[in-house]
């Protein structure tokens, strides 16, 4: 049996959630609404995060362009994503929405630019 505490981030209430994992069952207490339960379960089983960062660009306009993962990547893969972005250098122009790296850290998720750089 494994017990874990976490704060729900779905709304300003910030309910203190307590999750108990026994065998394959997850029970959630402390939530004031169903969203809290969903959040807790996701955080336990498959926590994901959108990663936003910068990537180097060869341009007169700016030295870096802001980028993001198109979807949340598994939380434990965040640092690996960053390491893969570290070695990339783009050539201007770069367009918002353009794919900067496919399948970042083997997640199947693409990283896209979020700004135009001339």
């Amino acid at each position, binding site marked *: 049996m494994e017990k874990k505490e976490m704060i729900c981030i779905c709304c*300003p209430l910030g309910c203190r959630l307590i999750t108990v994992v026994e065998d394959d069952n997850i029970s959630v207490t402390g939530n004031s609404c169903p969203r809290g339960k969903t959040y807790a379960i996701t955080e336990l089983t498959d926590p994901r995060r959108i990663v936003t960062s910068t990537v180097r660009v060869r341009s007169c306009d700016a030295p870096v362009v802001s980028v*993001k993962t198109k979807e949340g990547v598994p939380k434990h893969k965040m640092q690996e994503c960053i390491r893969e972005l570290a070695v990339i250098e783009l050539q201007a122009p770069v367009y918002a929405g353009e794919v900067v790296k496919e399948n970042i850290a083997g997640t199947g998720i693409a990283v896209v630019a979020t700004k135009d750089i001339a």
Partner: protein
Amino acid sequence: MHYDIVIIGGGPAGLAAALASKEHGADRVLIVERDKELGGILNQCIHNGFGLHTFGEELTGPEYAARYIKKVKEAGIPYLLNTMVIDISCRDMGSDRKAGSSGFEISLMNRTDGLFQIEAGAVILAMGCRERPRGALNIPGYRPAGIYSAGTAQHFVNVEGRMPGKEVVILGSGDIGLIMARRMTLEGATVKVVAELMPYSGGLKRNIVQCLDDFGIPLKLSHTVVDIDGKERVKGVTLAKVDEHLKPIPGTEEYIPCDTLLLSVGLIPENELSMKLGVTLSPVTSGPVVDESLETNIPGVFACGNVLHVHDLVDYVSREAMTAGENAAAYMKGELKHDGKQIEIKPDYGVRYTVPSFLDPHRMPEELTVRFRVSESFSQVKLCVYYDDVLIKATKKRIMAPGEMEKIKLKKAELSKYHDLKQIRIAIEREGA
């Protein structure tokens, strides 16, 4: 050059205000922006979380800005970049600077056009805000390199691609401090601790989890920095616990070796130009005092966004700015006249300030949004609205925090029933009170 409406600032507030003023019939609108591009502070806010209310999606700062910039370009609204407004005054009142019914004279400067003047029938103030520096807190110690406001650090990392430090202590757990904790960590720095003066964090819970917990960065509430070590570059800082009066408790000092101190200790609306015009500022918000039309004490001068009061959500900035733009256009069409009737909107117990500060019941829209912040954290309370001394509405609130801007809506039809109404009071009351 004469314009109907000149908008000072091309960030989210200025962009939305310009669009709304054009949409509501203003003819010659101009945006003046000091940076090399439109978008304001959003350009350096590369994290996501913007636009959920406006677009139903979570966008990063630059993406949110891009949506508005595209609309501004499509609407054919002209804008000046790299241009600083260096002076502004009401026309034809000489050096008295009294209310400008003859419009405004604006002095601008940029490399290409040099120093030049333009005239405006109305002005929308959208200059945003700046950060409180170390000096404003009087933190004792040396004055080394390595002390940055979180926003300046954010500029270095997100716009210049450079790191301002390797071993970081952050003072202030507002959203900017939290966001930078994550940012610095992801780019290779070690954030040792986030210290927060108050017994609660000013930032969103989501940021506590995703910027601190995710990276194992400790948050020390009721702590502050009492000394900065390092003659040329920061060598370390001393943290101390504070008591209920926010004063450091002797004996609780802890030295933390680091090379960088980031300060996220308050935003102040940037009102130098407003003061030049003679706009009355609120001592609580440091922003202009405005009425239901977001008009200041000077007819034809409107304010919106962070220059009016510091916001948490850019979506609310855009909405507020749309109101300002719409009203500036109405003003130019001669549709925004005062009949002198004013009802005070008074922040009472538990409410730190309201925007607007008063309203004209004939001028107000059918439904007016009044935004406010509470002065401390409350749980299980009632949000009460009084018309003079009559309780009109009491809404149960499970939680209210200073870091989360709140709002109530006032209906024109309701108010018109109260002919002699002098004051609308908003107060927080405890259950059972």
